[in-house]
Structure formats: structure tokens, C-alpha cells
């Protein structure tokens, strides 16, 4: 963990963040917009897979995915600025933060979930479902898990700055 922190600190992003007071809030603005784009597209597909909004063909929604991926990329870049450019306590302050660790864990789980969806053929089956039809139970499990993971990512993302509250609630 020290090695990763040292690598991130070596990027010199902290000096950049320190030199211009508008860098941090602008990255936050993009981070929130990227979140909305990701949830709006992935959440749209998840809700339809769960059976909400029948009549919308599942394959038609897949065209929205590149925008969700764009949101994820924006948030990876801005997120890297927060961690590597943290003017208070450096990258280590994030890496040691329990809320941040849980957020990263949930992003990893969401990634594995997407991989399962596309690599096991669940996605292909779901795309072939009739516009008014029901997706297979496996697709519904993936969609439900996706919603839970991403909402969790938002919650623990918000908690990073209030990590003490989480530690207190957990009795740590």
C-alpha cells in the first residue's frame, strides 16, 4: 500500500491541485455528472432486466452503454485526481480510508458482475428476449446485484469525507 501511495504521490498532482483552487471542485462537478451518466444508462438497463418498463426491447438499451462507460472513464480520471492529488495527507489518506476501500471493493464487484453478464451468455440471451418479455432469472440477479453495487458505490463515496461516522457506527 505504501508503494502505491508513493507512486500516486509521485505524479505531482497534489502540487497542481494546491496551485489552482478550482481544480478540485471542477473535478467534483465532473465526478457527479459522470455518476449520473453511469447510473442513468446502467440503471435504465438494470430496471428493464428486472421487468420494469416492459415494451422497451433490452437490445435497444444497449446502445446507451457507451455513454455509461464514458461516465465511468470520467470518474476514473477525476477519482485519480482526488487520490493522487489529495493536498491533505496524500494518497495514503484515501487508501487507508475504510469508506474508500469499501467503495473500491464494490466497483470491483460491479466489474465482475458485468464480466459474468457478458462472458456467460446471460447478456446474449437477455438481448434476444421479446420486447414485452421477461429476462431470465440469471439476468435479473445480475441486474439486481448491479443496482445494489452501484448504489453502494455512491453511499461509500459520499462517506469518504465522513469516514469517522462510519467507524463510529461500526464501533471501530
Amino acid at each position, binding site marked *: 500500500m505504501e508503494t502505491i501511495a508513493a507512486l500516486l504521490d509521485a505524479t505531482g498532482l497534489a502540487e497542481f491541485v494546491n496551485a489552482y483552487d478550482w481544480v478540485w471542485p471542477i473535478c467534483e462537478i465532473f465526478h457527479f*455528472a459522470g455518476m*449520473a451518466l453511469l447510473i442513468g444508462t446502467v440503471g435504465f438497463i438494470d430496471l428493464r432486466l428486472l421487468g420494469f418498463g416492459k*415494451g422497451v426491447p433490452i437490445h435497444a438499451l444497449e446502445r446507451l452503454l457507451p455513454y455509461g462507460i464514458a461516465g465511468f472513464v470520467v470518474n476514473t480520471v477525476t477519482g485519480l485526481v482526488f487520490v493522487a492529488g489529495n493536498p491533505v495527507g496524500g494518497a495514503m489518506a484515501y487508501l487507508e480510508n475504510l469508506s474508500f476501500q469499501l467503495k473500491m471493493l464494490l466497483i470491483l464487484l460491479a466489474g465482475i458482475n458485468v464480466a459474468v453478464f457478458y462472458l456467460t451468455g446471460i447478456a446474449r440471451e437477455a438481448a434476444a428476449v421479446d420486447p414485452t418479455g421477461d429476462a431470465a432469472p440469471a439476468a435479473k440477479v445480475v441486474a439486481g446485484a448491479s443496482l445494489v453495487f452501484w448504489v453502494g458505490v455512491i453511499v461509500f463515496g459520499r462517506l469518504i469525507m465522513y469516514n469517522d*461516522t462510519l467507524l463510529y457506527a461500526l464501533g471501530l
Partner: protein
Amino acid sequence: MPQLTANIAAGASAAADTGLLEAIEASAFATWVRESPSLFAYTGVLSLHAIGLAFVVGLSWAVSLRLLGIAPEIPLAPARKFFAVMYAAFWVNALSGLALFAASATSMVENTAFLVKLGFVVLAIVNLRLLKRYAFDDAGMPRNGEPVPVVAKVLAVSCLVLWSAAIIAGRLTAYPGLVSKYFG
């Protein structure tokens, strides 16, 4: 004499307003939101506010992209059901926003970015309702394969812009010092 009475009334009303904001901020509920160590207090309300934002803005953007030609195979009539999710998410944010406002009412009314944000949220919601009426409701809705009317495309663009402005002003609400430095 009527002028004097009006002045006194205006002064009294201004004083009562300030008193009201202080009373809201000092209320048991606002104090709990602000000071309780519970995860459900400030941090929980803040999390709800971010979740609501993601769904109302995200789905608004998704249907706007559809009207602008992305994913044209999405039929508009059944997609209308997703407006119920957007409205539900909006009410989550209206209520969580009210709780966050109560927690620091006196400073919030003096926060320019916050007031600008409220303005953009109102415009974005009016815009969203118009978008639903002109592009998704039965009467004026384009049939499958029909081109999207210009009015719906204009509303889709303003939907993207107004929510972006609300996010920008909303985030700047946390930086009153920075806002007065650059915009003061």
C-alpha cells in the same frame, strides 16, 4: 403614515423571517440531522441526495440522448414508465434537500450558488415535464419510426444543459468562499 406602517411591517416581517430560519436550524430535527453521530443522520441524508441525483439526472439524460438520436430503437411509449422513477428520485431529493437545508438554514439562504441551483432545478423539472408531454405522452408523441419533432429535440438539449447547470451550482454550494472570489 401608511408608508411608515408599511415600513414597520416590512421590518417586522424581515425580523420574523430571520427568526424563522434560526428556529428551523435549532429545531430538534435539524439538530439531529446536523449533529447526530448516526449514519442515518447527515451522512445518510447526503447519500440519499446523491442517489436521487444519479437517478433523476441520469435517466433524464438517457431519455434526452434517445430523443437526440442515440439508441433510436427505444420505443417512446413504453419508455414513459421510467418517468415515474425520475419523479420518485426527484421527491427523494426534495425531501433530503429540505433536511439538509434545515440543518444549516441561516447560511443556506445567503449561499448564492445554492439559490442559483434551486433556480436551475425548478427549470430542469419544468423542462422534464414538458419533455414528457411533447415526446412521450399519447397526444403529441411520434409513432415508431417517425422522426422526433424539433420541439422535443430542443427540450432534450435544454434538459442536458439545465441539469448540468444544477450539478455545477449544487457542487459550488459547498464552496461559498471560492464562489465569491471568482464571481463576487
